[in-house]
């Protein structure tokens, strides 16, 4: 069946499947977290890169804007043609705060403040902040080229301040027209505007820019917002005579985990969704297969049910038929629909009307009893009626119908039609009777044949003697016919005087033979006369043997066999059995006859023709007496044991096969069994059976059990 095939594939897999699922989920988790980590680190490095780029860019820009005024300033210092005016200069370079012309000893000669910003030295005088100028000019003097000073802080009115940077340009001596002409041009540049200018670039929108001095102090900051401090870029701005450090600080903070976790979750969930969809598809496929299997199973059940010869009938608690299979319908000859449509109060149509009341009572009783204990394997017999009114016996096996929720719903019954079985039993009984009758008839025929043979001899002798005597007493003309051939007397008619002495021996012989014939008749008569209804009697074994011995002896003589009968010593307990005398005698006769017939074959030498009856207490069970009939004949055919169970089985060409069958039946009635086996020592056969020992009647036992060995011709 299909269900079993799927069931066999499953057993090892639940644990494995669970492990697989765990592994899958773990892998998924690892992949997801790796994804998140990688995404984060990528984003990190990208932001860092951006910060570095911005720093470089801003530094370049800042440097350019720091260096841009230098050529114009130089041109102005040299007094070149076309040099911009101071006002233009201030306008162009808004970060330029002040121009100073200084003498060789760096004393101020001329000052020009930028109009675009507050005066840088309003709070703190220039004198106090001249250190930077000195440094720058010293460097410029040393290098003979413009030099920038370190930055310095100049407070402004209102509590604020600005970071400034001085650019010192040496004015070459050749240009100086007068002796006290200033030899230095010092430009003071504010860093903050420069930085803001640089930060105004859209690329730097998301960054905070800081200028840091050589001592690490923050000089100026610009940028729309505060940096997050995560992605920092540093770039050194090298100026002649000075250096500045530009630090960029991206506003972008460390990338947060949560959005990435969501992504991962979405990915994971969709993966799970796919997995679930796959599982669902597989499940559906399996379900379809299971449904097919179920349909097959159902068809199988259906076929099984309709092939049943046992009728099946389901009834509800009211006794209404709710289901009947084909066999039941066939049995009662009514179709299932009309069975089911019978009204609840009417008896089912298969109840014989004469039994309806009884059945109803039985049903009511059962209904009161409710669900019985499990073991209702014992059915009950009943009588049903076919559609044509024929009554037939049935065997009914009931089982309660209990539905899924445990409620008792009715009864399911298996109904067996017993009529065929009854017929078979009847037939078998009749056959057995016929068989026994036939066996008796055969035995009687055998006896008649034996009798005729036994009686033939004395009768033939008597007839001969009598005819002879008559011939002597009254000589007939026929005797002396000339055609009778030449007789020793040779005379035509002779009348011989017959003396009594001549006749006497013949007459004596006649009497003797008549006596013999009478004995034969008596021996048979004594056997036949006892035909009484069977009633177990206590029988002495020796008597049983003695009763059949004359007949057996007759037959033994016919085939030239000897008879030996072995009974226990007289000192022992005499053997008695209980049983039907006639039947047991018949068994002894049949077995003896079989044995003799088995030896009545030309190939059996006369010294082997011995029939032995051995009667003794069973060695295995002292309460039984074993009888063994041993012959020296042809033995048993190889498949004897199997075949002899059949009636009419015979090993003899002229046999009817009834003898053994009858023996078997009789012995079975006496609680015994007939065993046929090869005789030891062979050749020949031994048939044995055992009978229950009966307590002897005591007084007559001595007479009966006179043990002896009887020989016959």
């Amino acid at each position, binding site marked *: 069946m299909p269900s079993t095939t799927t069931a066999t594939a499953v057993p090892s897999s639940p644990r494995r499947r669970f492990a697989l699922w765990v592994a899958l989920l773990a892998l998924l988790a690892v992949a997801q977290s790796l994804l998140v980590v990688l995404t984060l680190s990528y984003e990190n490095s990208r932001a860092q890169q951006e910060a570095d780029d911005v720093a470089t860019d801003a530094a370049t820009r800042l440097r350019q804007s720091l260096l841009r005024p230098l050529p114009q300033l130089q041109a102005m210092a040299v007094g070149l043609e076309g040099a911009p005016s101071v006002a233009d200069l201030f306008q162009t370079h808004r970060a330029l705060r002040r121009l100073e012309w200084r003498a060789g000893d760096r004393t101020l000669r001329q000052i020009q403040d930028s109009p675009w910003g507050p005066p840088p030295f309003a709070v703190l005088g220039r004198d106090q902040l001249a250190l930077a100028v000195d440094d720058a000019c010293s460097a410029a003097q040393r290098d003979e080229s413009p030099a920038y000073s370190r930055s310095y802080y100049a407070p402004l009115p209102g509590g604020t301040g600005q970071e400034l940077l001085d650019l010192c340009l040496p004015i070459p001596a050749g240009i100086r027209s007068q002796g006290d002409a200033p030899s230095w041009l010092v430009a003071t540049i504010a860093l903050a505007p420069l930085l803001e200018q640089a930060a105004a670039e859209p690329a730097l929108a998301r960054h905070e820019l800081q200028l840091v001095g050589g001592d690490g102090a923050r000089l100026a900051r610009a940028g729309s917002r505060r940096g997050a401090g995560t992605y920092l870029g540093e770039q050194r701005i090298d100026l002649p005579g000075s250096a500045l450090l530009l630090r960029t600080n991206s506003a972008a903070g460390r990338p947060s985990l949560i959005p990435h976790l969501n992504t991962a979750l979405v990915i994971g969930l969709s993966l799970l969704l796919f997995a679930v969809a796959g599982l669902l598809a597989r499940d559906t496929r399996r379900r379809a297969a299971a449904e097919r299997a179920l349909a097959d199973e159902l068809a199988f059940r259906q076929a099984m049910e309709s092939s049943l010869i046992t009728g099946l009938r389901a009834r509800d608690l009211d006794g209404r038929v709710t289901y009947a299979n084909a066999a039941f319908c066939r049995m009662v000859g009514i179709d299932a629909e009309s069975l089911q449509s019978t009204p609840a109060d009417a008896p089912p149509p298969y109840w014989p009307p004469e039994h309806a009341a009884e059945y109803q009572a039985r049903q009511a009783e059962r209904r009161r009893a409710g669900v019985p204990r499990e073991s209702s394997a014992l059915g009950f017999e009943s009588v049903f009626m076919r559609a044509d009114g024929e009554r037939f016996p049935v065997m009914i096996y009931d089982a309660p119908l209990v539905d899924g929720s445990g409620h008792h719903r009715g009864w399911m019954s298996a109904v067996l039609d017993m009529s065929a079985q009854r017929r078979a039993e009847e037939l078998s009984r009749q056959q057995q009777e016929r068989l026994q009758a036939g066996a008796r008839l055969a035995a009687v025929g055998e006896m008649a044949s034996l009798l005729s043979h036994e009686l033939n*001899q004395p009768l033939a002798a008597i007839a001969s003697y009598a005819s*002879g005597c008559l011939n002597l007493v009254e000589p007939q003309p026929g005797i002396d016919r000339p*055609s009778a*051939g030449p007789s020793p007397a040779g005379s035509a008619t002779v009348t011989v005087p017959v003396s009594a002495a001549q006749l006497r021996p013949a007459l004596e012989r006649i009497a*003797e033979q008549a006596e013999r014939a009478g004995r034969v008749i008596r021996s048979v008569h004594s056997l036949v006369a006892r035909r009484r209804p069977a009633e177990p009697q206590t029988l002495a074994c020796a008597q049983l043997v003695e009763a059949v011995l004359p007949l057996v002896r007759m037959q033994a003589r016919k085939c030239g066999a000897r008879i030996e009968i072995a009974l226990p010593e007289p000192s022992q307990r005499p053997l008695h059995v209980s049983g039907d005398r006639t039947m047991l005698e018949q068994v002894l006769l049949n077995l003896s006859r079989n044995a003799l017939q088995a030896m009545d074959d030309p190939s059996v030498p006369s010294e082997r023709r011995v029939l032995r009856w051995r009667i003794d207490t069973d060695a295995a069970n002292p309460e039984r007496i074993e009888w063994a009939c041993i012959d020296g004949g042809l033995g048993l055919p190889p498949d004897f044991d199997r075949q002899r169970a059949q009636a009419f089985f015979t090993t003899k060409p002229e046999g009817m096969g009834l003898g053994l069958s009858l023996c078997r039946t009789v012995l079975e009635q006496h609680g015994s069994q007939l065993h046929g086996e090869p005789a030891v020592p062979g050749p020949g056969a031994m048939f044995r059976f055992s009978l229950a020992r009966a307590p002897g009647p005591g007084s007559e036992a001595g007479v009966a059990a006179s043990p002896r060995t009887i020989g016959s011709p």
Partner: protein
Amino acid sequence: MSSASTPSAASAIPLVHVIDDEEVVRDALAWLLRSRRLLSELHASADAFVDWLDQREAHDPRPWPDAPCCLVLDLRMPGTTGLQLFDRLVAQGRIPALPVIFLTGHGDVATAVATVKRGAFDFIEKPLANNALVDRIEAALEHSRVQLVQREVALGRQRALDDLTDREREVMGLVVEGQPNKRIADRLGISVRTVEVHRARVFDKMQVKSAVELANALRVQGPADGTA
């Protein structure tokens, strides 16, 4: 049929052999036969009979039976059965001169009938052992006697045929064909007179008186060697 010189077998004393395992039956039959003046020899079994026969033939080389006799044989006996003995006698070729009457029980009638078809003289069912049986025995003895006489006559003729000279045998052949003496003389190239002499000798030796009788004798005897 019987000629002037009667064969010896015809005058011999007939003898009935009774073979039965039952002593009483043998004795009773002997008694009955004696009452009808028939001699009988009793044998207790087929084997005993065979022994008797062997001894008889050892002493007397002449073929047995030499006198009219018959066998009364019980069909069922211990040892060699009647049937087996009968088969042996058939094989020895004794049956035509040795009629066998079977004694049977009622169960063996079918077997007995079969033996009759194979050459047994008759069968008698057992209890019937009176004069009717003796009548059948006498008939059997007569049958045996006739057989023996025929055998002797035939033997005599054979001997006579053996006595003929070649010329006489030639003449006899032509005489039996019905040729007149003259033609015989022509055929053999001898004189009629010589033919007559030969013819007379043949008639004398064969103990016949006419050509017809001679032809008859030769027919009974079978084709005489030398002629045809």
